[in-house]
């Protein structure tokens, strides 16, 4: 085998290895392999306080991830936060309209996510639907503040 051919083979191998590595990083290491694209529908919910909720946080029903938070913005008309959720298309018209949306925390210090408790209504959520019953995030400072305030009230009695 001549020298030129050897170099060609080695360079080819190098390129292939490099692209395999990039593919591995994309599919196995990052979320690209598990991401679902295009096949989602949007549901919105309004919260008094979203705490530390971030875009791309999971949306779960019974602990199973069914979608992700697609966008968060503030509505100055009713002073509340509007959260857009992208739910997987397979659950279109499968989530009751009177479901309860809560902002929960995974573990004591974990990431915040949205938990949906299915309601009993016959009407199902369609694309662009809105969940009206919501519960805000638990903000630690407020809870501690209430606790101390409560203690103070007790002491005053």
């Amino acid at each position, binding site marked *: 085998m001549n020298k030129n051919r050897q*170099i*060609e083979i*080695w*360079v080819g*191998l*190098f*390129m292939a*290895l*490099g*692209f*395999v*590595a*990039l593919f*591995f*990083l*994309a599919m*196995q*290491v*990052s*979320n*690209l*392999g*598990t*991401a679902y694209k295009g096949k989602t529908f949007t549901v919105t919910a309004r919260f008094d306080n979203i705490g530390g909720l971030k875009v*791309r946080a999971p949306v779960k029903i019974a602990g199973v991830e069914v979608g992700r938070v697609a966008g968060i913005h503030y509505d100055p008309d009713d002073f509340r936060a509007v959260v857009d959720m992208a739910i997987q298309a397979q659950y279109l018209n499968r989530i009751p309209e009177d479901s309860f949306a809560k902002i929960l925390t995974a573990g004591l210090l974990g990431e915040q996510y949205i938990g949906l408790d299915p309601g009993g209504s016959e009407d199902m959520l369609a694309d662009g639907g809105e969940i009206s019953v919501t519960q805000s995030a638990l903000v630690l400072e407020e809870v501690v503040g209430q606790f101390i305030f409560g203690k103070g009230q007790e002491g005053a009695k």
Partner: protein
Amino acid sequence: MTHLLAQLGAWGLNGMARLGRAHLLLLPLLRGLLSILRRPRLLLDQLYSVGVLTILIITVAGLFVGMVLGLQGYYILSRFGGETALGLMVAASLVRELGPVLTALLFAGRAGSALTAEIGLMKATEQLSGLEMMAVNPQHRVLAPRFFAGIISVPLLAALFSMLGVAGGWMVGGGLLGVDQGAFWNGMQEGIDFSDDVINGVIKSVVFGFVCTWIAIFQGYDCVPTSEGVSRATTRTVVHSSLAVLGLDFVLTAMMFG
């Protein structure tokens, strides 16, 4: 006293002139892309000596860095009961920082120094002037293929480094220390975003490849054509490349993840 001041001034002016020459060299290097398209063989040969010959050091370094990250991460995370985040920690630090930066540093030491010495020796033995005498532009014929080979090689090497690092972390974490396999990979996939982390890491390594190869080629082309001059230029390549990579890494990180 005035002598000292004059020396200081000459040092500053020389530095500025060198910086200017380095930037002036960029234009013929980029224009050399045309001659590479006409003769891709030139690029192929350089990809071999710049890229393929660097694979071994990248492989070994990546594997061991990943294994060390696995061990160190485990000891710290297990204190807080967070061993399941080991995969995320290993992958995030590799893909975002260690992969591109360590690859660029190793590349500067392994390939950059070789490039400078080769080009410097070509200049010292008047091969570059010989090419010019034959009406061949040495900047297009000799420098440009090496330049583009470096820019192509570093991102691929960095991806290889990150992949082997993750494999090393997985070997230590999953194999030796018994971290749950599902949690290891799942935590990684949940926490690492393709466009935010992987693509930004690739962009970083392209920038590092550009800077390292540019410095190496310029130092070789600009060296004093004596054996001492070549040796000094080689040293400067490694020092300047390393400093440039570390400094640029801070700037890029602040821009991308800030």
